[in-house]
């Protein structure tokens, strides 16, 4: 076994041991098949509320957000390997086997991974007679390689697989199934974090269609746009009424899964085929999800006992205040780090942000404490002094805060000192007077608390002479459109957040500041070439690049050296100051009175639904 895989296995074993010895609130998630911790009973109906639905109707190749990831992991889909759905210090970030018998074997050159599947695992009704085989995973990756099917997802994570980029929905050269229970993956280059990528829902097995064995994509055939409405579960739960789906008729005549009404409701019931699962306790019998309503509405329903928890939203401050004052509800308020950072971005090709002195001045002047207060205060996270969360750096850089200010409230004096060195401050008094500092186009989200954030930022930046011209709109169609498109010349995009996809800093650096993410989330345009800048109509001819550093770290094997490399990259980022990180985000949940054994899934950044139980078994 390669050294790295050994490390993973060893840490996993230690995690197992730690959990077993720890016991109590952590939940025995990695113990026996159906563990019951102290006083936790099975049964009952969990009632959840969501203020907004998932974005792609549970299509596993398209969904790319925490909410759907949690529902996939906890309940609907099993993958080859998976995270246990626990807190980070309880082993939540340790990968373990799920449908695979064990973590994959890695070849000496790091180019081949071999997975051995458990036998006898069947799909949920209506395909309860179909067994999960290695070919089903190939099918999932084939669908992932189809740009139309994976349109909003993350196919780039699977580019290292040989033949993936050229497959376009067809067969993939680098995937081999020597027998029904073995999957061999050949990569084009060593990718130390590859096992993590096989935990993501896009790799969940897609069953063949028993009525049409020739269909290459199995039951997903003909459902390029909406496979989620016909999803076949492998996890402890399935959509209610799944058994009514009929795959013997052509795709456009098949009836959708009745248990999910997009934008309205979702009901999950136990999957009778579920077996042999060491990852998920799955205490409750039924999960009813009501979709829609503001966070206030959901908060009221929780207080009234109609709902057990608001999964997707942020509890309103007045509800938190009431619960904090209630002696009975003290341990129902949960705040856990979500391994994400909220930050402001500056377009390094748009004056005045092409001058690093201006950017550093802004790093100093931003009142991060006030920004956090608009979200709800210290409960919602720690002020961020650097970009890549230390939890992804193995704890490194936790004291690194190069632009520190008293209480995080901003330091106007130091900001002015930086600004005075800028070419845009002609009289060097610390206040920008060049015309480029007026009418700076800022594109923001229009939902609270972003308008409040804007008011604070406008005030902060005006103290160093920068006048923002703020435009607000819908996050996806307006803000992302303007901020992510280089031709829009958006200068300042402050409503940005980024959360890990899996526990490695690779999911932080390149997607937000690597040149391959220009046109996507590299909003500061780091790594853009002069030809590109010219083509987009910018007068600025060069911008900093982090590509070399990122490439250096990505190539390293998992371990202390890699972590140190990413920590250095973090320092480089802060010195170049393309972004102003201000909050290491925490997920805050208020669990209703009926919930016991609240557990946090650090891999998804949400409450761990397969670990929640109801008092008295929901009686």
């Amino acid at each position, binding site marked *: 076994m390669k050294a790295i895989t050994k490390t993973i296995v060893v840490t996993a074993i230690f995690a197992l041991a730690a959990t077993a010895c720890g016991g109590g609130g952590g939940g025995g998630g990695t113990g026996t098949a159906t563990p019951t911790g102290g006083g936790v009973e099975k049964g009952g109906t969990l009632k959840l509320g969501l203020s907004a639905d998932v974005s792609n109707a549970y299509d596993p190749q398209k969904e790319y957000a925490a909410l759907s990831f949690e529902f996939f992991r906890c309940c609907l889909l099993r993958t080859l390997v998976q995270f246990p759905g626990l807190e980070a210090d309880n082993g939540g970030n340790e990968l373990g086997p799920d449908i695979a018998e064990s973590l994959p074997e890695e070849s000496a050159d790091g180019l081949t991974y071999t997975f051995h599947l458990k036998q006898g695992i069947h799909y949920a009704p209506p395909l309860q007679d179909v067994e999960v085989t290695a070919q089903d995973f190939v099918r999932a990756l084939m669908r992932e390689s189809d740009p*139309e099917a994976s349109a909003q997802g993350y196919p780039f994570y699977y580019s290292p697989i040989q033949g993936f980029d050229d497959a376009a929905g067809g067969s993939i050269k680098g995937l081999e199934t020597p027998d029904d229970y073995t999957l061999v993956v050949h990569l084009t280059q060593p990718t130390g974090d590859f096992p993590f990528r096989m935990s993501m829902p896009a790799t969940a097995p897609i069953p063949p269609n028993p009525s049409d064995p020739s269909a290459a994509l199995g039951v997903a055939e003909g459902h390029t746009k909406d496979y989620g409405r016909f999803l076949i579960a492998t996890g402890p739960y399935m959509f209610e009424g799944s058994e009514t789906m009929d795959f013997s008729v052509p795709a456009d005549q098949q009836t959708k899964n009745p248990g999910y009404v997009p934008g309205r409701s979702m009901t999950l019931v136990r999957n009778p085929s579920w077996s042999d699962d060491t990852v998920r306790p799955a205490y409750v019998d039924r999960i009813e999800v009501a979709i829609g309503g503001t966070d206030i509405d959901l908060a009221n329903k929780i207080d009234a006992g109609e709902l057990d928890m608001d999964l997707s939203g942020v509890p309103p401050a007045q509800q938190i205040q009431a619960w904090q004052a209630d002696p009975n509800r003290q341990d129902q308020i949960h705040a856990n780090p979500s391994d994400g950072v909220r930050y402001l971005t500056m377009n390094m090709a748009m004056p005045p942000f092409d001058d690093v002195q201006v950017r550093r001045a802004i790093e100093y002047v931003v009142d991060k404490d006030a920004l956090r207060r608009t979200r709800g205060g210290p409960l919602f996270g720690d002020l961020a002094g650097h970009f890549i969360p230390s939890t992804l750096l193995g704890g490194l850089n936790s004291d690194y805060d190069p632009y520190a200010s008293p209480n995080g409230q901003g330091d106007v004096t130091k900001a002015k000192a930086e600004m005075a060195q800028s070419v845009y401050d002609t009289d060097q008094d610390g206040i920008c007077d060049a015309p480029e500092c007026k009418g700076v186009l800022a594109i923001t989200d229009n939902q609270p608390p972003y308008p409040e954030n804007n008011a604070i930022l406008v005030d902060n930046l005006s103290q160093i002479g920068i006048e923002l011209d703020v435009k607000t709109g*819908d996050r996806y169609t*307006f803000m992302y459109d303007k901020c992510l498109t280089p031709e829009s010349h958006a200068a300042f995009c402050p409503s940005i957040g980024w959360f890990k996809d899996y526990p490695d800093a690779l999911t932080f650096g390149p997607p937000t500041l690597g040149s391959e993410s220009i046109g996507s989330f590299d909003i500061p345009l780091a790594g853009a070439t002069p030809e590109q800048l010219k083509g987009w109509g910018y007068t600025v001819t060069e911008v900093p690049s982090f590509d070399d550093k990122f490439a250096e770290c990505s190539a390293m094997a998992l371990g202390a050296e890699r972590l140190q490399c990413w920590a250095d990259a973090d320092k480089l980022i802060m010195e170049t100051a393309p972004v102003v990180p201000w909050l290491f985000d925490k997920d805050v949940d208020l669990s209703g009175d009926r919930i016991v054994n609240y557990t946090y899934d650090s891999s998804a950044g949400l409450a761990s639904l397969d670990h929640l139980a109801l008092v008295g078994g929901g009686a």
Partner: protein
Amino acid sequence: MGRYLIRRALFLVLVLVIVSLLTFTIFFKLPAGDPARRVAGRVITPETLVAIRHNLGLDKPLWVQYGRFAKGLVPWPGLFLNKQVYFNYANNVPVSEEIYRRLPVTITLAIGASIAWLLIGLPIGIVSAIRRRSLFDRAGMLFALFGVSAPIFWLAYVMLYIFWFKFQQWFGWSLPGSGLPTGESLMQSVLRGRFLLPWFALALSFAAFYTRMVRGNLIETMSEDYIRTARAKGLAERRVVFRHGLRAALTPVVTMFGLDLATLLGGALITETVFNLPGIGQYTYNSVTSSNFPGIMGVTVLASFFIVVANLVVDIVYAFLDPRVRYT
């Protein structure tokens, strides 16, 4: 009568065409956002965007795109709001599915509110007119003034504050607040009183207009010659008012009622947003703010359709009520 109907039908088509063109221009030609982005999601390459735009037909010439949408507005099965063109860009839910699901809620809201405002507004207006300058008249006009001046979104929150939030604190019981739980059927929601506050808020606002109008019309009618004749003939005052006066006074009310009801059916945007009712209005608002163009188009034309049809129906009813009107 037949020729009149045909002319009105043609007018309906004209309005729908213009509305669809206007909507297309406003939301498509000058978009505040790029719908392709919504489909593209988090990690996109420029090539993906091009591919998505091609899939959605966004790269075709404008008039071709308009044609695709216009075809979906023809009220013919298979064409109307067809799934190929009219689907939510983000999650591929067909517009027809959404509208079908949401229309009952809006209909419930509209009908309940309209009954309420007629029951409140008409009697007050009539009595105010009959007892001019009395205390009742003054109180009635004050109420009407209040209803006409208070913005519905403020009124709605004040009502929520008192009847839902404060009642809970004072009495431990309150009217239901906003939202319709998904577990309930529409009938159950109505019976549990979840529409009471929205109905009342809407009714207060609209009743005010009707009160003023009925009062004004009735007073004017009452001073007409033929009323004087009826009185001179010795008819009882009540008969005079109700038989002769009201008939004329109410005809404009019919017009307004038709328009108001039609407008509400097209979606009481603000009321549904404030009270979080999953109706057409809420869908309209969501679609506008998320640049969901097919949704916008479908809802806009639906709303216009209601208004123009209401106009037509009102004209016909008007004809029966007031034989003086001719149709050429």
